């Protein structure tokens, strides 16, 4: 039953009252008499404005009626929509009417006299009044005018304003375990419902909505929940992300004065400014399938702004779409890759066009890293790290290399792992320090971030129906720069995983909703060939290749070498093996790939 506008049209109250009086029953009949047909007198719009809280039927309403054999039937409005006196029809009813009708149909229990409220429900504008009526039969079976619907629950209205794009559910919660979903029994006099209290697992309600709902300072969304009548002292709300985790700062309690709920009460809560409640609590990460990813790729930039607590010259980009080339290139005219990202670009590192200013050396700014190397060695390319141990994971670890600066040991699994502050020894960008090896993101951020693990990356490997992240291909317009990439968002439990390789344009809201990995391409030379000198990046804006911290093995096929995620010009995502671009398996870790760190908490 929808009365979506009557609360919003206070200015029209006088008109509405006048109409109601014209249609009022004659003196002497009970107030709200059931024998007066109002359907001819009240237009839809006028009844919807009723500020007395009068409820009217709408055209798509349905009620539940049982027969004496216990079968449930759906009756829909056939006349009287927009009034409080409607005709309901069921074309398939069998047997004999039993004594109770329930509104709405969807809340009727499987047994007569019971109601069922789902734990999860999609947000709609429909006000969820829950009502029941006895069916008082006439002698001939003509039931006209004989039913009267009473509210059996209260309704709570919540308004969320300026909702971050990664929010996608609202949770009403009883802190002491009062039942808020499941099966309820109608009380004999139909003035309410009863149900078990403190029932484990039933003390909440999840009302979900799409990502990006109410995105923007002035945007709002209304959440409506039917709540069993009870004098609660423990109700609270939260806003959830797609993992159903509480978004920090959004847990709010409701005082008992607002939750002395009785059937037919409509409690209108003041709007909550969700972005203000969250504040800076999610500034350092965007969460997908439970993994907290950095909001930008890892970068080394000697004269750039240091990250707080980072190695000198190291940081993450300010924006998810940024990379070394997207700062300078990426114009559609130069990168004719189109919105499907199907073409690739070959670009050259360390040219004048790339350098931030002439004073910088060739090593001052880079964001393509060899695997397992740290400091400038991650940019230099002739000090490869591999592992003789399959599935060796260097995530969150730093090792001291043996050998010499020009010929360091390559088997990282045989190196000494460091602990404490030793792990964060400085390695100036303009000097060669091959003495450390391990997780460059962990080292650069001094433990704040780390490389993703195989499991972290696996959760992004979106495939239909596999319960992993949603994947949407697309591009972001940064001014005139068109940055191709893939957007990953958590696939909530109430959604099927989506995997869409057809590119769309992403907005600021999309960027906030999940993890955007730009197609930064790959430094495909292994640098042992002097003529290349590891300056060539191929497939920029066409392919994306990102490292994780696991070295798969050296034995067979594509499981050899470090695990990465890879997405192609056609936006197909592959996972689990190092690039096929090199024929030298043991040399593949020296290829330069992007790194999107994960928060190390």
């Amino acid at each position, binding site marked *: 039953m929808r009365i979506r506008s009557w609360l919003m049209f206070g200015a029209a109250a006088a008109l509405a009252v006048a109409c109601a009086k014209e249609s009022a029953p004659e003196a002497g009949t009970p*107030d*709200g*008499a*059931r024998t007066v047909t109002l359907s001819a007198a009240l237009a839809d719009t006028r009844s919807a404005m009723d500020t*007395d*809280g009068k*409820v*009217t*039927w709408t055209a798509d309403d349905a*009620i539940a009626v049982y*027969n004496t054999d216990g079968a449930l039937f759906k009756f829909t409005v056939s006349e*009287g929509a927009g009034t409080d*006196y409607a*005709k*309901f029809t069921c074309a398939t009813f069998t047997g*004999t*009417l*039993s*004594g*109770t009708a329930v509104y709405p149909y969807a809340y009727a229990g499987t047994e007569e006299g019971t109601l069922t409220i789902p734990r999860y429900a999609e947000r709609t504008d429909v006000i969820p009044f829950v*009502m029941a*009526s*006895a*069916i*008082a*039969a006439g002698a*001939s*079976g*003509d*039931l*006209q*005018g*004989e*039913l*009267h619907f*009473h*509210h059996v629950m209260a*309704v709570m209205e919540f308004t969320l304003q300026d909702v971050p794009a990664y929010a996608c559910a609202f949770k009403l919660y009883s802190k002491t375990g009062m039942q808020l979903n499941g099966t309820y029994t109608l009380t004999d*006099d*139909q*003035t309410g419902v009863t149900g078990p209290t403190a029932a484990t697992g039933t003390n909440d309600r999840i009302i979900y909505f799409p990502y990006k709902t109410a995105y923007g300072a002035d945007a709002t969304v209304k959440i409506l929940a039917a709540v069993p009548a009870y004098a609660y002292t423990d109700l*609270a709300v939260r806003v959830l992300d797609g993992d159903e985790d509480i978004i920090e700062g*959004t*847990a*709010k*309690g*409701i*005082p008992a*004065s*607002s*939750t002395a709920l*009785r059937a*037919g*009460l*409509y*409690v*209108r*809560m*003041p709007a*909550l400014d969700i972005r203000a409640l969250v504040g800076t609590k999610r500034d350092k990460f965007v969460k997908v399938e439970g993994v907290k990813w950095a909001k930008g790729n890892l970068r080394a930039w000697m004269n750039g702004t240091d990250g707080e607590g980072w190695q000198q010259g190291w940081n993450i980009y300010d924006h998810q779409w940024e990379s070394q080339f997207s700062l300078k290139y990426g114009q559609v005219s130069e990168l004719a890759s189109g919105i499907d990202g199907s073409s690739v670009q070959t670009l050259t590192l360390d040219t004048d066009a790339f350098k931030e200013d002439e004073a910088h050396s060739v090593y001052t700014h880079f964001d393509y890293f060899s695997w397992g190397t740290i400091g400038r060695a991650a940019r230099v390319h002739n000090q490869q790290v591999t592992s003789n141990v399959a599935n060796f994971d260097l995530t969150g670890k730093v090792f001291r290399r043996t050998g010499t600066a020009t010929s360091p040991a390559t088997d990282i699994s045989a190196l000494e792992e460091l602990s404490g502050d030793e792990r964060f020894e400085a390695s100036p960008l303009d000097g060669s320090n091959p003495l450390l090896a391990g997780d460059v993101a962990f080292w650069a951020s001094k433990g704040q971030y780390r490389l993703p693990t195989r499991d972290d990356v696996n959760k992004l490997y979106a495939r239909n129906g596999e319960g992993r992240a949603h994947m949407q291909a697309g591009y972001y317009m940064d001014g005139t720069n068109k940055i191709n990439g893939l957007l990953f968002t958590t696939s909530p439990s109430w959604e099927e995983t989506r995997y869409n390789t057809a590119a769309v344009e992403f907005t600021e809201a999309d960027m906030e909703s999940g993890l955007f990995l730009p197609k930064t391409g790959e430094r495909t030379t292994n640098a042992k060939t002097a003529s290349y000198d590891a300056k060539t990046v191929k497939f920029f804006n066409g392919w994306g290749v990102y490292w994780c911290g696991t070295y798969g093995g050296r034995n067979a096929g594509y499981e050899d070498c470090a695990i990465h995620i890879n997405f192609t010009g056609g936006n197909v995502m592959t996972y689990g093996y190092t690039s096929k671009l090199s024929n030298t398996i043991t040399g593949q870790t020296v290829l330069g790939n992007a790194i999107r760190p994960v928060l190390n908490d």
Partner: protein
Amino acid sequence: MKIMKKKEYQTPALRVRPVAFEGNFMLSNVDPVDIQDGSWEEDGL
């Protein structure tokens, strides 16, 4: 806080004598709702 006065209605008895169902039937007035403004507490944890 704004509380509307709820109208009084007679409540039909539950479980009246069942009858054979012959066709359409009308559903009459539904109760109005009372409207109340709520408030928040700071801590919802």
